[in-house]
């Protein structure tokens, strides 16, 4: 069901944990849906010096958060914001269709952490939206085509 890469990131998650006095923290998802992701950032001179995550969720949710932290480590904020969920899926050599929403969650968690960093430091970042109210967070699985 999962690629080797997903299994690798699930069983050996990179950058799992917390950052004390993080410069930005973002949490998205909710327990109702069964996925919650939290990303912590340490930022110096606009560069992501350290990033950690914690995830409550399925194998794909853990793997997407793990690889997302790898993708942004050492990047500038601007570069990090360009990383999309497609890039996350690609880096994992693909995800089952029903799990693609996990990659969106990883993108959203990252954006939420950057938003938090920007808020705390009074920085304006163009194009960065405040995180959605996670209680209303909803993800959809595309319905299978039905035979008419």
């Amino acid at each position: 069901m999962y690629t080797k890469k997903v299994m690798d990131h699930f069983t050996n998650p990179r950058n799992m944990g917390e950052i004390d006095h993080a410069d930005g923290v973002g949490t998205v998802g909710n327990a109702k849906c069964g996925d919650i992701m939290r990303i912590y950032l340490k930022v110096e001179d606009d560069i992501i010096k350290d990033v950690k995550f914690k995830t409550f969720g399925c194998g794909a949710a853990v793997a997407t958060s793990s690889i997302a932290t790898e993708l942004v480590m050492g990047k500038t904020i601007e570069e990090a914001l360009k990383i999309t969920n497609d890039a996350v899926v690609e880096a994992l050599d693909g995800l089952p269709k029903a799990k693609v929403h996990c990659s969106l969650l990883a993108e959203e968690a990252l954006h939420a952490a950057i938003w938090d960093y920007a808020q705390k430091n009074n920085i304006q970042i163009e194009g960065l939206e405040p995180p959605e109210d996670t209680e209303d967070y909803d993800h959809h699985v595309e319905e299978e085509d039905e035979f008419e």
Partner: protein
Amino acid sequence: MEKKIYLDHAATTSTRSSVVDAMLPYFTEEFGNPSSIYEFAQNAKQAIDDSRQIIADAIHAEVAEVFFVSGGTEADNWAISGVVENYAKKGNHIITTKMEHHAVLHTCEYLEKKGCEVTYLDVDADGLISLDDLEKAIKDNTVLITIMFANNEIGTIQPIKEIGVIAKKHKVLFHTDAVQAFTHVPIDVVDMNIDLMSMSGHKIYGPKGVGALYIRKGVRMKAFIHGGAQERRRRGGTENVPAIVGFGKAVKEATALMDSEAIREIELRDYFIKKVLETVPYVKLNGHPTKRLPNNVNLSFEFIEGESLLIMLDMKNVCASSGSACTSGSLDPSHVLLAIGLPHEIAHGSLRITIGEKTSREELDYVADALVTIVKRLRDMSPVYEDYMQKKIESVIETQYKK
């Protein structure tokens, strides 16, 4: 442990080698069509009759009341849609519960779209229906009560005999999906006033693709599959003779072993539950503590998610199942866990272990020990557990389920 530890017997079982042995000649030597006239084919016909007799004896039914089908799902479909069709003059109201198997629920939902009225009874926190609610739900146009014998996820066994009494009193037909209960707990269709009952082969060390529907004599039931004269013209199509033979053999063996197996399984089940509850914090047992299938364990582990738990167990060669959304293929956790009022937070963290005839105490010790490590690891990874440790949220299990 190098060896695979299979603890998902409610999903399916292996076909016992004695069952396979009984089936094999019916593929190669005794391959005749049971409907053919020559003597050679009559051996196959006889084998079907013998299996039918075994199944009838196992549930205290008459031979003519047992109909072979492709499995539990077909039996459920036939029982429910058949009653609705044949009793349309009396009414179109069905009473069921919120925690039935999808074979029943989706059939009811389909019939609702076709104009039937369906009442979905609530269940309590242990998964038991209220007999009072059931009786109150019966109306003049009620044609069928369909309530499962024992639940496939949480193992809770319903008060079937009492339901039968109510059904009889109000002259409403009573169907029960006994796929999980059959040959695990004693079933007497006469004593329990059961009018229709679904059974399956592959949950009891028989082959897949075969099951049976018990239809009490006198229940009007027309053909479900139109074709030849097989199954007393009610289910056309050449019989799956090897599977039917295997099903009969499996029932015969399981019935003989039922009492001793139940004692052994209950001991193992309760040993495992106790051990996990003692060694892992923030865990709750789902389903009734005693009115439950001898082989069923269902636990909710707070702060973690079920699919992750299953993958970690799989990596330790343990096969189990979960009611989490990710394993159900939808976004909601299992309807059974929601029906017993489990909050989403802990429904996602459920684990079902169903033991079988080869399950040993050593295996369960291994799994219990593995759970300590795995649960700790997943909790260390969990932002929800972090929030709990920092006292930002409360534990659902501690606040709602510990008395």
